[in-house]
């Protein structure tokens, strides 16, 4: 387990290095750090002097190493638009996205597990067929369309729920949370439903197919032969084994989830990372864009590593040889 942990962390660091290299290449190719600092109303000679001073004329590799050194210390450059360190801007916006992802994950977990199990246990039942049919429709509706339709129905027509923003926030040690006020929660409902709408069908299908596979195994047959109650076989014997692959895929799907926060936040003008990213693209704020890539990269690598380690802990038979 220890060697496994070390290997996984080493792999994570390697992936991070590759990501940082790509990010730096992008920044090097399209960014203009001089403009980011002094703006555009400075003479060419002055800019050239500044370039030299900032080491922008150094060889590519030594610039990369400098970039890496700074990045490790949390300095990924200044945002052109905000005139603030990019990381600071990102950390300021992060709680909104994290809360959205958290609430959506809760929705996904609490709905997909019971429905997935139900469909696996009663594959021929009419209700299972309806759930599976709905799930393929669900997969086919783009998340931004779901979001717009939710706004139109619940905000524009029915006036039940607010259509944009985060509502009233509570400041908890620098973390601006919308989870503790009625207004904050009302604002969360539509975005989190929209965000979970695309992942939910995927997870229902995943849990169903995994569980159906498990139900065919010898040890489940043996459990029947032992005369256990069916509920125990389904929820203890089969479900515990179903969870393992689902955890792995869940970790991988986090990437998809973050991609969808960009769409969801754009529709709801949710002041989170995704919205920030699209703004940065529109404002050609290269540093901020690259910083976002780096932060998202770190999140992916950390989550995937943790998921792998949890998998190792949950699964007593783990004897992974570095491959998945």
């Amino acid at each position: 387990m220890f060697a496994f942990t070390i290997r996984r962390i080493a792999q994570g660091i390697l992936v991070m290095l590759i990501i940082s290299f790509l990010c730096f290449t992008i920044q090097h190719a399209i960014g203009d750090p001089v403009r980011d600092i002094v703006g555009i109303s400075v003479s060419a000679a002055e800019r050239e002097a500044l370039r030299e001073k900032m080491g922008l004329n150094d060889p590519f590799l030594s610039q990369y190493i400098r970039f890496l050194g700074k990045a490790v210390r949390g300095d990924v450059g200044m945002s052109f638009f905000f005139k603030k360190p990019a990381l600071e801007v990102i950390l300021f916006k992060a709680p909104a996205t994290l809360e959205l992802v958290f609430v959506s994950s809760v929705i996904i977990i609490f709905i997909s597990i019971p429905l997935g199990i139900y469909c696996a246990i009663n594959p021929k039942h009419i209700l299972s067929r309806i759930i599976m049919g709905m799930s393929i429709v669900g997969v086919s509706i783009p998340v931004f369309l779901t979001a717009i339709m939710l706004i139109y129905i619940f905000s524009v027509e029915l006036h039940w729920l607010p259509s944009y923003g985060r509502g009233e926030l509570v400041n908890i040690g620098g973390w601006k949370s919308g989870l503790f006020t009625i207004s904050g929660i009302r604002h969360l409902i539509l975005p989190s439903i929209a965000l979970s709408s695309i992942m939910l069908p995927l997870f229902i299908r995943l849990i169903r197919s995994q569980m159906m596979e498990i139900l065919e195994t010898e040890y489940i047959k043996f459990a029947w032969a032992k005369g256990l109650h069916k509920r125990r076989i389904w929820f203890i014997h089969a479900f515990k084994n179903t969870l393992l692959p689902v955890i792995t895929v869940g970790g991988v799907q986090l990437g998809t989830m973050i991609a969808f926060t960009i769409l969801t936040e754009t529709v709801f003008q949710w002041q989170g990372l995704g919205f920030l990213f699209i703004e940065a693209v529109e404002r050609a704020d290269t540093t901020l864009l690259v910083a976002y890539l780096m932060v998202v990269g770190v999140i992916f690598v950390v989550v995937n590593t943790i998921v792998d380690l949890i998998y190792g802990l949950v699964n007593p038979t783990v004897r992974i040889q570095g491959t998945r």
Partner: protein
Amino acid sequence: MGTLARIRQSYILYSFVRDWVAITCFIVVCILILISFLSPFIAPHNPYESASINVMNAETPPMWMEGGSSEFILGTDSQGRDLFSTLLFGMRISIIIGCCAVILQAFLGVIIGLVSGYIGGRLDSFLMRMADVQLSFSTMMVAIFLGAIFQAAFGVAMYERFAVVLLVFIIGLAEWPQYARTVRASVLAEKQKEYVEAARVIGLNSARIMLRHILPNTLSPVLVISTVQVANAIMSEAALSFLGLGMPVTRPSLGSLINSGFEFIFSGSWWITLFPGIFLVLLILVINLLGDWLRDVLNPKLYKG
């Protein structure tokens, strides 16, 4: 081989004829493709011809509603273009981008998968690691990043001019790992088999063995993936366009049409969003259903994950 292919084809036909969902989906796909490609002939207006567009007509509701006009069946969009015509032209762009992107993905993915699986070793683990990383970032995320980077690099005007090519390139580049992994898996399985060994003993070279002997055996999973990938590519294109990283409003795809309609939903002009939305969902849904059906029939060992 010929006989085998014939049996398989007849089996596909057999299951197809018995499955009304598959038949319905196939018909719907055909109709959608047909009307979108015939759009220059059947559309009542030409949305690209600025002379025929009158801003005074903007936001006209569908013809059956109060204020609607029989000239514009589904109403008009924010610029006064006939929504139905714009929608047909938009769907054509979506389908073209979706199919071209899938061809590019398949091309990249199949080659990488073949080489990776056949040669193996360091190259294999490097390529697959790359596919892993890219997949863990999710294809949609990679596409959005690439779109953002290209737009920053080329500038908005340039990007919009070459939007179709760029979108094909972005989506193609973002989704090759799916193919690569599947093809690699079937190459590994085929490599074990005796006919490959025999071909090698005869002295055929690697490229020939790969292309003539292994490739044909990997085609059924590739076919299954391709169907679902077209749906995914259309979805990705719509998402990129919705974010303003895709087709410009002057030459809208379904996604950018939805985007342009979004602002007007608050003033009650729901149709600009809803109709393109319905066509987009319908298109993706029937392709997905066909893909599901094809997977059940061909039942290839797909890469899971």
